[in-house]
């Protein structure tokens, strides 16, 4: 799994490439936690190049969502493929997140959101 950060104005996009599995979910969680802790409150996680996500990955997303809420931040997901979206539906995770079709729209949406 590779993680790349792209800063766009006040929004930080995190592009994830590869599998979010039992081994990589931990490093992804640490990376996103660090961003939230450092005060970057508008985060987009780009799933465009995610091959699959396992329950360990869903656990990471839930922890990050809680941390983001606690920090009064804004979190969005984007670029979710049809196979991965099916997993989000089976896991009943689609209602828990702001999900947008692509990175540009996600960044534009979060740039509009209130607060810092």
């Amino acid at each position, binding site marked *: 799994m590779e993680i790349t950060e792209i800063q766009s104005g006040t929004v930080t996009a995190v592009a994830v490439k590869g599998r979010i599995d039992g081994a990589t979910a931990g490093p992804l969680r640490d990376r996103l936690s660090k961003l939230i802790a450092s005060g970057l409150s508008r985060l987009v996680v780009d799933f465009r190049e995610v091959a699959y996500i*396992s329950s360990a990955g*869903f656990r990471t997303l839930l922890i990050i969502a809680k941390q983001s809420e606690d920090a009064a931040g804004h979190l969005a997901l984007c670029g979710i493929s049809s196979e991965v979206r*099916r997993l989000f539906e089976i896991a*009943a995770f689609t209602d828990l997140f702001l999900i947008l079709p692509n990175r540009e729209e996600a960044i534009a949406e979060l740039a509009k959101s209130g607060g810092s």
Partner: protein
Amino acid sequence: MPNEEVRIVNQLAEIAKVVDVLDAFGRGNGLSERVRHDMSVAVDEIISNIIHHSHRDGASHEITVRMNLVADELHVQIVDDGVAFDPVSHDAPRPSGSVAERALGGLGLHLVKSLMDDVCYYRLGDSNHLTLIKKTTGPASVSGGRSALRLSVTIEDGISIVGISGRFDSSIAREIKERLTQLIGAGTKRILLNLYGLEYISSAGFWSLLAISRELEARQGCLVLYGIGDEVKRLFDVSGFAGMFKICPTRELGLGVLRESAN
């Protein structure tokens, strides 16, 4: 028949090796993206579970993964020598609730059961044998709605305890008969059938059980049934098959009958 085997040690970083081999095997045999994706997630979940929960001695253990293409199904068998764990009979609650309320226990098994067409579990000796089955043809729909799980096998004191759940009709009667025949072929003489989870049984189901019963008797073995609910009991009575089987009200009584049959 295309097949592939990979052995790993019980470390999370090893999961990627298995998924790499699985993906190459799937691509090499022309399997769809959906089949490869769903099997990758299921294999990931099962191996993660084994690594987290199966071994408590801190030592290195081997996990064997075998991939087979059988007719129009992809079978992936995962064998480990850890503590007995039957995911088939383990309850995986449907996920619900907000970010704050959400509990994630059981999510992995929920994904596995939703993504696979069938999951079979056997405890043989000191090993767990779990087979994940995904159909490679037909409508690529998620089977989450119906109960996708049909058969689990545990061996206790030389008695095979087989759980059958869901609808036992003509569409799966042949398959269940084949699996039980395989078990007999492997040396099983005494089978205790747990029918608690059975929703329905058709005449094809009865006939396949009868064939198994006769096969066992021919080898001086025995088939005993237990856990038959009211609805299913009515089907046994109406069809006239009730008198053709040894039926016990509880697991303990069933085991008792089978232990005696060996003497």
